[in-house]
């Protein structure tokens, strides 16, 4: 029953890469994945990374116009909602007379992702490039890691 939560994990035969390595380093065989995880191949796929001062969400939404995507944050839950036209063969005259393969997703989609605490949603920015939407969510000032200066004391 709980094995279902790990269904997007397809084992060691999937390409190794920096993201995978990082994941394995950080979570060596942790058991259950996120409860919001989805089967592999869902559209759009989402990666989340963290730096010292921000959390970045990458939405792999190929062929999606920026205005067709709606990103919102409420109570630390990020919702990505949008619509991709069903295989619109723009730029080609004439109707497709036959489809031999249809694997690309079309239609409406909605995905929600839980984010870590302490993000400043008011300063969030989203950019779209090459079919990837990058959502940059800065951490709140008081939660950023701080360097503490060590003062020498005269003895």
């Amino acid at each position, binding site marked *: 029953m709980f094995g279902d939560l790990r269904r*997007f994990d397809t084992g*060691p*035969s*999937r*390409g*190794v*890469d*920096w*993201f*995978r390595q*990082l*994941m394995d380093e*950080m979570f060596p065989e942790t058991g259950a994945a*996120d409860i919001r*995880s*989805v089967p*592999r*191949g869902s*559209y*759009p*796929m*989402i*990666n*989340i*990374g*963290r*730096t*010292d001062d*921000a*959390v*970045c969400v*990458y939405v*792999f*939404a*190929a*062929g999606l*116009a920026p205005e067709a995507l709606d990103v919102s944050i409420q109570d630390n839950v990020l919702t990505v909602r949008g619509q991709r036209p069903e*295989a619109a*063969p723009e*730029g*080609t*005259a*004439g*109707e*497709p*007379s*036959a*489809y*031999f*393969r*249809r*694997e*690309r*997703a079309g239609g409406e989609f909605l995905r929600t992702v839980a984010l870590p605490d302490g993000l400043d949603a008011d300063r969030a920015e989203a950019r*779209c*490039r*090459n*079919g*990837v939407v*990058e959502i940059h969510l800065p951490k709140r000032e008081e939660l950023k890691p701080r360097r503490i200066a060590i003062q020498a004391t005269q003895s």
Partner: protein
Amino acid sequence: MNEVTRQETRQQPTTRDERREALEQALLPPVDIYEADNALHLLVDMPGVTRDSLSIEVDNNVLSLEGRIELDMPEGMSAIYAEVRAQRFARRFTLSHEIDSEAIAARIDNGVVHVTLPKKQSHHRRRIEVKAA
């Protein structure tokens, strides 16, 4: 119907070398294939792939599409959650002899690759006129 068929065969790796090879495997991008205007059209989803990081080759009637995912990532980023766990997309197709491989054209727009594979003149669809007797 068999003008374009998927070519790859994926096997479970057995030896260590094979496994290492498998680890370098790429993501399989979803693709739409349809026919229009005496040509076959391929639409391939490759988000994050740029014009420069995409390579399309035709060799011995095999069309290979490969693209590296170029993400603009800040230094020192660590992953919290990842569904895309490879850095490249790759897919191969076998072309039939009807395709004019000299005239293949491709463009990439917002992460979607559109490949046009025109048929040779001799294989174009013809309309046959029905004459009155």
